[in-house]
């Protein structure tokens, strides 16, 4: 690791202001992604702002009947919360399908949302990577791309977002609450939070420099059957090849978000009219613009079959 200075944040607004003051500063929450990347010198912050002391570890009902999840609620606690299990089951399921018990005990809501890609070339500092080193090129385009994106990608980057939790949050229409270095706050709809790579794959979210996440808010429960299905190379403790988060109503209508296929959780609201007609019609619409590589074309078929299984489970 490169040397860095360290401070403990005293309030969310102060954390944001401190991050803007210090060039090269980063927040650290669970540390399970940031420290991993710092050891490999993929991330090289000069200053760490430890936010663990901020009292953002609570889940509370919102006046509208939804749920406000503090940025520091650990993945284990979020998945185990009775309200989440009862009303937002797809979120519990997505969290429990990710990482390991040890990691979920540390990983936070905000840190999970901001975890970086698992593209093998992003991790290999000897290889060009536009995300790690803007302008250096993308090694994955002509390389090993089995794990990578099939839709929404660009000539600059074909990486996927690895978060399971984010896929469920996308299906649930969550809102990310933040405070900026000047003290102003805003809510960013999850649909606008993660960006497509375009020409700037190193810019991954709508967050501005220093902007700090305080909470993630869920709207009132949508009802229906909640299913998260993750297809991976091992039965446990592996990232998704493809995952499906779905909330399906009795009448067969529903919402569907996909993981493992794009630079952000992939949901196409306009395609959801096809959900009652079944997996084939729905997936054809959701992945209408897919451009897989020869190594990951299987993901398109896999996504359709995974959705088929999800819809069967939701009916059953």
């Amino acid at each position, binding site marked *: *690791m490169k*040397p*860095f*200075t*360290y401070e403990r944040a005293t309030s969310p607004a102060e954390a944001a202001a401190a991050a803007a003051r210090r060039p090269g500063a980063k927040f*650290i929450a*669970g*540390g*399970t992604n940031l*420290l*991993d990347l710092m*050891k490999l010198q993929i991330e090289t912050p000069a200053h*760490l702002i*430890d936010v*663990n002391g901020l009292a953002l570890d609570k889940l509370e009902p919102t006046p509208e009947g939804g749920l406000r999840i503090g940025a520091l609620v650990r993945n*284990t606690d979020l*998945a*185990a919360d009775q309200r989440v*299990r*009862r009303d937002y*089951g797809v979120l*519990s*399921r997505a969290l*429990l*399908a990710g*990482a*390991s*018990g*040890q*990691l979920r*005990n*540390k990983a936070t809501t905000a840190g999970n949302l901001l975890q970086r890609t698992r593209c093998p070339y992003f991790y290999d500092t000897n290889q060009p990577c536009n995300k790690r080193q803007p302008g250096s090129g993308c090694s994955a385009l002509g390389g090993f791309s089995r794990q990578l994106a099939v839709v929404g990608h660009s000539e600059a980057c074909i990486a996927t977002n690895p978060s399971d939790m984010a896929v469920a949050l996308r299906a649930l229409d969550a809102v990310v609450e933040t405070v900026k270095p000047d003290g102003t706050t805003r809510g960013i709809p999850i649909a606008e939070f993660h960006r497509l790579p375009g020409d700037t794959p190193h810019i991954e979210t709508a967050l501005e420099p220093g902007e700090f996440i305080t909470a993630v808010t869920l709207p009132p429960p949508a009802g229906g059957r909640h299913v998260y299905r993750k297809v991976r190379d091992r039965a*446990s*403790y592996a990232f998704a090849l493809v995952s499906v988060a779905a909330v399906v109503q009795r009448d067969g209508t529903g919402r569907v978000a996909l993981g493992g296929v794009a630079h952000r959780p992939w949901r196409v609201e306009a395609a959801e009219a096809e959900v009652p007609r079944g997996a084939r019609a729905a997936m054809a619409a959701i992945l209408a613009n897919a451009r897989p590589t020869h190594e990951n074309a299987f993901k398109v078929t896999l996504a359709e079959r995974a959705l088929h299984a999800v819809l069967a489970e939701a009916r059953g």
Partner: protein
Amino acid sequence: MKLFFTVNGERRDLELDTRTTLLDALREHLHLTGSKKGCDHGQCGACTVMVGGRRINACLTLAVMHQGDEITTIEGLGSPDKLHPMQAAFVKHDGYQCGYCTPGQICSSVAVLEEIKAGIPSHVTADLNARPGLTADEIRERMSGNICRCGAYSNIVDAITEVAEQQA
């Protein structure tokens, strides 16, 4: 940077480079070498310790982030002449070969039984709104963050199952 935390019930004062992981603080500075470094990247579980009663990977956290925390390592669970029931069960069932992953496996399994008791669901829990059971499937899934190169898995599950049954 100066800091202190409690390890196995004893207050320890340290002065460390900010880069020191909790694992390196325990092994290199406090000479508690029971916790092992397998991968140093959160992938193998050999470094599993309990902080505030919860299992975590000590390799993916900084010592400075644990000011004032209560840490339990394998050395705090039991000693050669007074084994923790989980340690005794691992010996009885041959839950290891080379033993490198074992301290992490044992810390993790003690925590797993607590997690099931606390009603925390897992990926294989069939009904999210019911209490999870103490089945072999539950134990396997919850232990998936602890890798054993020697493949002692089935004996590890036997050891954990026996302790679970003793506690039930």
